């Protein structure tokens, strides 16, 4: 039952609608900015002959992706796949201006899925790839032949262009919204935004659930780094 707010109760209504409310939890924000930093670092390191750092960076990205996948099932409302991934009807309604929520918009959700899948595929290529000289290998290179490993490296290189394209689109969308008066970057830093009247506030996830997701993602990554031995 929503609490009855008497007309003219200025302090209460300001607290609900006027001031910034939580929209992104800490895990979502950390994943976002760590991804941005690690993707940049991965790109820089491999172009500056630090292939070993590049591989470690990729393993860290793998950990983040596993964490985010899990957090999407047990995290805060705005982190959950089941809440922000909507059908085409919702996307159409959003485009017609009939959407009033917080977190990822139905259209933005498509971008989240595209970026997540593109990164997962990129990590997958990297895991089985080896460098041109046979000096460095992804942790799962033994699961495939030398030829497959070489092809994976070529695809890993090519696929980065797709990721770059998605990043450009992502930043372009942020600029587009900014020009229309909506600031998206600050909430991704502070976690808070002023909600539109009537929007459902965020339901927070449990901190211990985040810790379990983190432990699982580190555990799975360690198993992958070990070459995915039989359990």
């Amino acid at each position: 039952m929503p609490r009855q707010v008497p007309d003219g109760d200025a302090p209460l209504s300001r607290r609900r609608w006027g001031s910034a409310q939580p929209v992104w939890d800490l895990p979502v924000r950390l994943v976002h900015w760590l991804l941005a930093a690690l993707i940049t670092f991965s790109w820089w390191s491999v172009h500056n002959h630090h292939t070993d750092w590049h591989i470690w960076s990729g393993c860290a990205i793998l950990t983040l992706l596993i964490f985010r996948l899990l957090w999407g099932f047990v995290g805060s409302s705005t982190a959950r796949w089941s809440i922000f991934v909507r059908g085409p009807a919702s996307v159409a309604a959003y485009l017609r201006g009939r959407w009033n929520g917080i977190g990822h918009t139905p259209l933005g959700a498509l971008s989240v899925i595209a970026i997540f899948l593109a990164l997962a595929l990129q990590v997958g290529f990297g895991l089985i790839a080896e460098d041109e000289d046979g000096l460095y290998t992804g942790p799962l290179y033994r699961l495939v032949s030398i030829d497959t490993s070489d092809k994976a490296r070529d695809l890993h290189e090519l696929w980065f262009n797709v990721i770059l394209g998605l990043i450009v689109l992502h930043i372009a969308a942020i600029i587009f919204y900014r020009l229309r008066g909506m600031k998206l970057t600050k909430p991704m830093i502070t976690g808070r935004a002023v909600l539109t009247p009537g929007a459902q506030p965020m339901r927070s996830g449990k901190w211990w659930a985040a810790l379990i997701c983190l432990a699982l993602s580190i555990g799975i990554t360690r198993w992958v780094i070990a070459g995915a031995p039989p359990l």
Partner: protein
Amino acid sequence: MRIVRIALASIVLLAVTASAATVRVSGPKAAQVMHERHEGMEAIGKAFKVLHREFDAGSPSVPTVRASAARITALGKRSSGWFPAGTGPDVAKTGAKLEIWQNPQDFAAKLSAFQKAALVFNAAAAGGDMNAAKARYADLGGTCKACHDKYRTEMHH
């Protein structure tokens, strides 16, 4: 005796390498050298990938390690003739940087370090002690990287 042989071979290689950069080629000869260089480097890389898999597996196959070591050593010897002037990126598409011909002495030293490391690794592989061979293989990899980091562009083929 082996040390003496390696030392003598190294001196000969160094002499050949040092002279290599001063020779200038052009036309079909340049294209032929560049083709041989590309195929040769690729074959060395392939042999290295085989070795990486062997040494990473608990018990490497001695014949496979020996064959790959011999192949790298043989190609290493030929590599002295792979970088004559006139086979740079100003002539045709290649991963070889212009800096090779701008720093001929440093490049010759790096190429020679690779050739020596290949000989030492080959000797270790022939000796049969795979732990020793693995250590020399790591040294050899270091010489590949030292040169490639400085003198090879990122290739897209």
